[in-house]
């Protein structure tokens, strides 16, 4: 505890004698981000505390606070509990566990480090994936007394899944097994077979003691049988991902089109792979147009070259269309474009995956709407077994097919994390509900093309002398949707309009007879009805639909399928008590007595429209009046 000041002795001498030389040295330090995996029991927080302490990153006042806290709540008796230095939020301190991702900073004479500290338990899988997503290296901690555990397997699998290329197997608490080589070798051999089954080909095992500092900053004299580097030595020299990225073909997702005046137009973004210089030929994706680079601008002005990791503005010789979300790429080695994919999803949301529901998908600077198909399988994170699954709940990992509403520029996650990694965002709550990694584009999306029809939808509608539309009724069961929809249908028919009524019950006898009433089935049912309604509007028909359609996300999905103004949402607003009192089909009675599961309004939610095009309050308006109002809205005053 004598030396509590910052930096190594050599660095301090340099700082004291030649601060400019030191700053010059610091400028050229590279940054390594890594993650520590393990539980508090394995000494994970102790290891991080030790790294900070050994690299002299703990100040006197922090140390004083740490000593006070150690005595108050620590688990190490009179010794310093390094774990307290690392565990952040008040609630977590009390529980003695870390429940989030905390980032810690330290530096040595050769490198700067950011370490992501995440909890080890299975219920925090999403936290670990988050921390791992930005890491170049993972330290997998093992308690030498316990050896390879289920969680070791899980952590290794997750680190591998997220594409971390450098794994360190830190066999900790070697002091408690007498620095025994035999014990070390047994654990390494056990781990090798575990790693093989996951697909990990390379890792570095080292015997350490975070508590006593052996093989942390310097090689320990207690492990003469170990020839490898100390942990810090290894962290200081391991190759960085960003350096590897520089040798790959050029890619830059366009973040912003910089157009301050008519004379200048540049495309700004972060280069995620390769390098670029004036004179290079680039392809703009998805359009596929090419042009020569005329200028490469950095904050310091024109540059002769820029490389992966730099944020730059690129000017092209030709005036070609390019906007945010497009990708600039080396013309001869451009990434692919597709709208259907297979991907691994790590579910992070409180609400489970609803197959068929549209989510926002954000990949690099592209944001599109995407629907996910039911998982092909879920992966048991402890055994790597593939399990059948209908959905994914929080912390579940599965493989799914997904479709985007327009083609996106991508690469497989393995090739490029920036163009293969994405997040899913719930359209209503705006929560980030999943992280995903693209495997490949589905062949059908590349081979199935849209067949252009010679007769346009306008021509078809014109022949019927009408404008196609979708009158979408939504409301609780028994609210009066079908009654009013039927009246509207009859009125329009009398006016020689070509209509068709899609009724909820009828559809479930045919098109959707394979579906039940769970949330995911309701979503799929509405998707099918939406697709049918779209085909019918293409044919020029006025479509009337009467479905409970309880979720706003799916109503919005159908609205998005149609041309602007074509989708007319009609909210048949009947209070639950009133609908239940009427109970025309006797369904509420069944639901109340438990004979009917997932009944909307009772055991399943109904999300009322916030801004329906037409709002019918059935407690104030008769069905006939409502029908007249709707027809007038569609056709105009009669």
């Amino acid at each position, binding site marked *: 505890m004598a030396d509590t000041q910052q930096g190594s002795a050599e660095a301090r001498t340099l700082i004291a004698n030649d*601060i400019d030389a030191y700053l010059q040295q610091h400028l050229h330090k590279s940054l390594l981000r890594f993650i520590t995996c393990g539980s508090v029991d394995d000494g994970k927080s102790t290891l991080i505390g030790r790294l900070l302490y050994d690299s002299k990153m703990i100040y006197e006042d922090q140390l004083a606070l740490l000593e006070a806290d150690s005595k108050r709540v620590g688990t190490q008796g009179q010794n310093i509990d390094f774990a307290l230095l690392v565990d952040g*939020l*008040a609630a977590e301190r009390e529980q003695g566990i870390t429940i989030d991702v905390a980032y810690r*900073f330290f530096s040595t004479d050769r490198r700067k480090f950011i370490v992501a500290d995440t909890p080890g338990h299975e219920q925090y899988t999403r936290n670990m994936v988050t921390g791992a997503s*930005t890491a170049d290296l993972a330290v997998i901690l093992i308690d030498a007394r316990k050896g390879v555990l289920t969680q070791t397997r899980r952590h290794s699998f997750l680190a591998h899944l997220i594409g971390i290329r450098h794994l360190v197997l830190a066999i900790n608490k070697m002091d408690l097994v007498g620095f025994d080589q035999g014990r070390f070798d047994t654990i390494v051999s056990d781990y090798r077979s575990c790693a093989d089954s996951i697909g990990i080909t390379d890792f570095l095992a080292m015997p350490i003691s975070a508590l006593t500092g052996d093989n942390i900053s310097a090689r320990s004299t207690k492990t003469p049988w170990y020839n490898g580097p100390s942990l810090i030595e290894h962290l200081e020299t391991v190759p960085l991902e960003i350096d590897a990225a520089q040798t790959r073909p050029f890619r830059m997702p366009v973040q912003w089109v910089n157009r301050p005046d008519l004379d200048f137009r540049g495309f700004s973004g*972060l280069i995620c792979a390769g390098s670029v210089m004036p004179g290079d030929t680039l392809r703009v994706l998805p359009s596929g147009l090419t042009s020569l680079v005329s200028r490469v601008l950095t904050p310091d002005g024109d540059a002769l070259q820029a490389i992966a990791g730099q944020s730059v503005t690129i000017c092209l010789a030709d005036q070609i269309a390019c906007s945010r979300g497009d990708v600039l790429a080396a013309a001869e080695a451009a990434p692919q474009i597709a709208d259907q994919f297979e991907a691994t999803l790590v579910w992070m949301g409180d609400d489970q995956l609803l197959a068929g529901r549209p989510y926002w998908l954000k990949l690099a600077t592209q944001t599109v709407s995407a629907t996910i198909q039911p998982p092909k399988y879920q992966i048991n994170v402890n055994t790597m077994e593939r399990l059948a699954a209908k959905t994914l709940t929080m912390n579940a990992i599965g493989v799914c097919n997904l479709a985007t509403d327009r083609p996106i520029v991508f690469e497989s996650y393995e090739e490029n994390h920036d163009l293969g990694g994405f997040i899913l965002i719930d359209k209503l709550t705006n929560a980030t509900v999943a992280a995903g990694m693209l495997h490949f584009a589905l062949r059908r999306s590349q081979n199935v093309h849209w067949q252009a029809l010679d007769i346009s939808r306008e021509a078809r509608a014109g022949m019927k002398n009408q404008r196609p539309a979708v009158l979408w009724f939504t409301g609780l069961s028994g609210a009066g949707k079908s009654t009013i929809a039927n009246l509207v249908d009859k009125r329009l028919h009398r006016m020689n309009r070509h209509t068709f009524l899609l009724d909820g019950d009828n559809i479930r006898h045919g098109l959707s007879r394979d579906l039940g009433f769970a949330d995911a089935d309701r979503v799929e049912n509405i998707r099918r009805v939406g697709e049918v309604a779209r085909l019918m509007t293409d044919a020029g028909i006025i479509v009337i639909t009467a479905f409970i359609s309880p979720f706003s996300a799916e109503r919005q999905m159908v609205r998005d399928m149609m041309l602007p103004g074509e989708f007319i949402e009609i909210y048949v607003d009947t209070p639950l008590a009133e609908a239940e009192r009427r109970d025309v089909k006797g369904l509420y009675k069944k639901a109340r007595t438990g004979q009917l599961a997932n009944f909307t309004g009772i055991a399943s939610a109904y999300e009322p429209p916030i801004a329906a095009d037409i709002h019918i309050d059935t407690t104030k308006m008769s069905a006939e009046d409502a029908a007249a109002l709707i027809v007038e809205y569609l056709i105009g005053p009669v």
Partner: protein
Amino acid sequence: MYEFRDRVARESGMELIVYQNPEAKARGINPFEHGSQVHTDLWKTEGLKQALDLHNFDVAFGGARRDEEVSRAKERVFSFRSANHRWDPKNQRPELWRLYNTKKAQGQSIRVFPISNWTELDIWHYIHLQAIPIVPLYFAAPRPTVRRDGLLLMVDDARFPLRQGETPVMRSVRFRTLGCYPLTGAIESKAATLPEVIQETLLASTSERQGRAIDHDQAASMEKKKQDGYF
């Protein structure tokens, strides 16, 4: 500090909006009579919330860093606040890769911390490399000071009521961090140039927040303040 602020705004052509909590002003809230907690809450936390509401800002940028303080280590780069500016540390969006989810609901606002992953040394280093002007209080100069409750406080202002037995003494001091006056203590220093300041920072044995009275109010005090809407 104010003079520096006005000059930077003027020279860069930025529109500077100054807001003060009228209640704090009317009641004459000051740290000497009301304590640092009330003072910080009314002037900084409430004042900021009122100003954000008044102008309907969607986004407020801040310079907070994760290396500053334990509760900041878990702060997101895009940190969401409810319509009444509450921070819910248990319900934060995961931030993966370089992907930030910036979608927000009506009324919500975002505190964005672009230099979250910088360290104190990185900041000084950048200021040095880019020759960014800084407030003179960061540089050492002879200033009248008193020592109180373990902090070295500067007395160059009529707002500062001296306690019995206190006589200001001229000391060569500077500030490592500028919180609100006079809650931030000075340190004795002779560092009058930027390289000297960096040199001193690197050789220092205490963290920069050590000089801030507000962190010592109670255990986990920063986390609590942040939940209430403090920057």
